[in-house]
């Protein structure tokens, strides 16, 4: 079971709540220092924070490159564009 601890002036739940902002570098310096003090002294949050950061890094690295549209898509779309652009009123 989870152990809620107070380390570095923050409880584990408070660290969990600001993990995304911490990783995005969007916490103000004072809060960031307390998060870092907590992570240094709490193995539970230190491990979970690492997992969270790894999952985000994997999403960004592994799934980042989208597959191109299927063959022939661009030609079909350009034909549709020509029809639309040729309509009266445009």
């Amino acid at each position, binding site marked *: 079971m989870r152990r809620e601890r107070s380390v570095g002036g923050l409880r584990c739940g408070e660290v969990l709540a600001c993990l995304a902002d911490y990783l995005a570098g969007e916490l103000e310096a004072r809060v960031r220092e307390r998060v870092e003090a907590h992570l240094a002294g709490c193995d539970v949050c230190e491990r*979970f924070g690492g*997992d969270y950061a790894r999952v985000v890094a994997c999403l960004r690295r592994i*799934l980042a490159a989208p597959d191109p*549209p299927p063959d022939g898509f661009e030609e079909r*779309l350009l034909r*549709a564009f020509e029809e*639309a652009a040729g309509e009266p009123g445009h």
Partner: protein
Amino acid sequence: MAAEIDAELLSRVARGDRAAFACLVRRHSAPVLRFARSLVDAGSAEDVLQETFLAAYRKADTFRGAESARAWLLAIARNAARRLHRRPSPVLADEEALAELGARAGWGQTPSPLAAAEGAELRERLAAALERLAPADREAIVLRDLEGLTTAETAEVLGIRPGAVKTRLHRARLRLMGALRAGGRGQ
């Protein structure tokens, strides 16, 4: 620079310039298609993609003031997906307590959700876990982590405030970690 190119392309597209339209499509179709695939089934995603660019042509003159062409196109795609499929806006998953979400995501538990997974297996597990999320959660992750939109751009696409984007993204990532743990190996 990319922003200026897109703005220039869109002003030419508004005048019916075929070459500018083709260029716009080449710059943005792959990410728009990926987003469409996260909203509708694979068979309909191409329809959404085509409709997105035709709608972009019809209202190219409304682009000014958008966060970016990418965000503007993705917002159009989101509307096109809803119109083509008459789907209501994605319903938000129940707002569970953050501690519960965290516990399911592995907070205070072992092993870690990605233990021992790498390469192709990791990619497959991530994609499968993403697939299992509620649409509103998947949307937040696709826009911020895969498409690489900023919080402000994501807020524009989803029509919500930036603070709400941050909250939704964090909760969505925790649910994704929960899905990864639940899926485990060989899922």
